[in-house]
């Protein structure tokens, strides 16, 4: 069984010698590799879960030997650590995937787009790049992604590299039509590219995913899990819920809250989660201990998401701020019917009305909180100093 993190201990970047010794040289695949990728049914691991094969087909159709491969290691999701770990420890797997994409899509440029705060990851990727041959090195340039939530969105990454502004743009045109410098562009998450490196060698993906277990567990961090691993298994690998768990946030800040007992049996597999109306997204599994107030927790995350709006589209800029304010009023001053009604109305109003999916992700998150914590939102009272003592 192959896996993404197989090989030497995860203490630093694997050398090219070790990587090639372990996996053999990078296979010379051609245009037909796209069919293999489509058949593998792998979905992007940046958050949106879009089928990789479909993306490659679209870029291949538009490429006139001038395509661009944008390696997305922005990882702007605050609790996610998996892309950083992968780049820091298995950089050649990511680079293999990027160069395979460049060959198959007839790309002239490969751009590494790595979060500016992910210093170890950037250093590892650049060190690995220095070990590659000159033909490969010449294709590559590196850009530090601003540490903002939306900077990893496809159109924001393209906007940043082309014009220096990491805000999303109106689509169409889509990246596969007009991306970096107007050229057809593949924007692909680093974990997805690492899977490409395995598919090119073995004909199929590893069958595993990288996830980050966060919140109320003794050992939060990144795990590589099989598609049969349940959320309960993953949490127990992270040391178990440190307190009795109240709820689990599946898929990070654009994900959904679930009652803990409903979350435990779910398998960490894209297809399986979809059948429950959930998404693996960026793979963050957040455990909320029973001692934490879900209303205050939700209000805090909504304030964060409102602050991360790129302030371009009115419904997102004003709507998320208003939603965050209403949550905060309930959290700080206690529940009231007007704010509960506003939350219901505004979540409906804001949805689908941005150039990017930022407002949609935020309201899906909030709606799941209102469902899962309906009782707490309806009965919330301010936490007085006396109560805390």
């Amino acid at each position, binding site marked *: 069984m192959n896996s993404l993190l197989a090989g030497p201990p995860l203490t630093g970047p694997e050398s090219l010698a070790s990587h090639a010794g372990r996996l053999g040289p990078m296979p010379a695949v051609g245009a037909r590799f796209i069919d293999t990728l489509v058949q593998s049914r792998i979905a992007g691991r940046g958050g949106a879960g879009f089928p990789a094969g479909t993306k490659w087909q679209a870029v291949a159709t538009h490429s006139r030997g001038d395509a661009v491969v944008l390696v997305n290691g922005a990882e702007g999701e605050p609790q996610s650590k998996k892309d950083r770990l992968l780049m820091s420890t298995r950089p050649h797997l990511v680079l293999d995937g990027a160069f395979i994409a460049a060959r198959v899509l007839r790309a002239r440029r490969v751009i590494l787009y790595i979060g500016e705060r992910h210093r170890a990851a950037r250093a590892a990727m650049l060190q690995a790049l220095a070990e590659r041959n000159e033909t490969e090195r010449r294709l590559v340039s590196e850009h530090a992604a601003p540490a903002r939530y939306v900077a990893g969105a496809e159109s924001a990454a393209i906007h940043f590299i082309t014009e220096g502004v990491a805000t999303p743009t109106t689509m169409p045109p889509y990246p596969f039509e007009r991306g970096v410098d107007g050229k057809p562009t593949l924007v692909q998450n680093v974990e997805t590219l690492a899977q490409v490196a395995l598919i090119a060698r073995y004909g199929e993906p590893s069958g595993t995913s990288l996830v980050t277990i966060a919140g109320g567990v003794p050992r939060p961090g990144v795990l590589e899990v099989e598609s049969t691993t349940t959320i309960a298994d993953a949490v127990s690998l992270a040391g178990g819920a440190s307190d009795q768990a109240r709820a689990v946030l599946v898929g990070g800040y654009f994900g959904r809250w679930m009652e803990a007992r409903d979350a435990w049996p779910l398998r960490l597999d894209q297809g399986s989660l979809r059948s429950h109306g959930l998404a693996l997204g960026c793979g963050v599994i957040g455990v909320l201990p029973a001692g934490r107030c879900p209303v205050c927790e939700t209000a805090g995350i909504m304030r964060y998401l409102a602050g991360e709006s790129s302030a*371009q589209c009115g419904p997102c800029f004003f709507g998320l701020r208003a939603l965050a304010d209403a949550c905060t009023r309930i959290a700080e001053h206690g529940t009231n019917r007007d704010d509960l009604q506003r939350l219901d109305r505004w979540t409906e109003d804001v949805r689908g009305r941005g150039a990017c999916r930022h407002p949609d992700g935020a309201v899906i998150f909030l709606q799941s909180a209102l469902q899962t914590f309906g009782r707490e939102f309806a009965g919330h009272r301010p936490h007085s100093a006396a109560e805390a003592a």
Partner: protein
Amino acid sequence: MTKEFALTVDRIKCDGRGLCAELLPEMIRLDEWGYPIIAAGPIPQHLIPLAQRAVEDCPVLALAFRRTERSKGG
């Protein structure tokens, strides 16, 4: 297949002047911050001239027609 038109807003261009909702209240209402919420689906035939006017008069050219195709009996 029949060709139909729907209205679409460029959310980045739109800065909430609200003219569209005055010209075409049958299809466009404003949210609490003054930004248009457009009724889903194709523009009814009798409203097309008014929709045309709303598109042309948008001061920031954020409102546009989008061609949609609908298969009959589908």
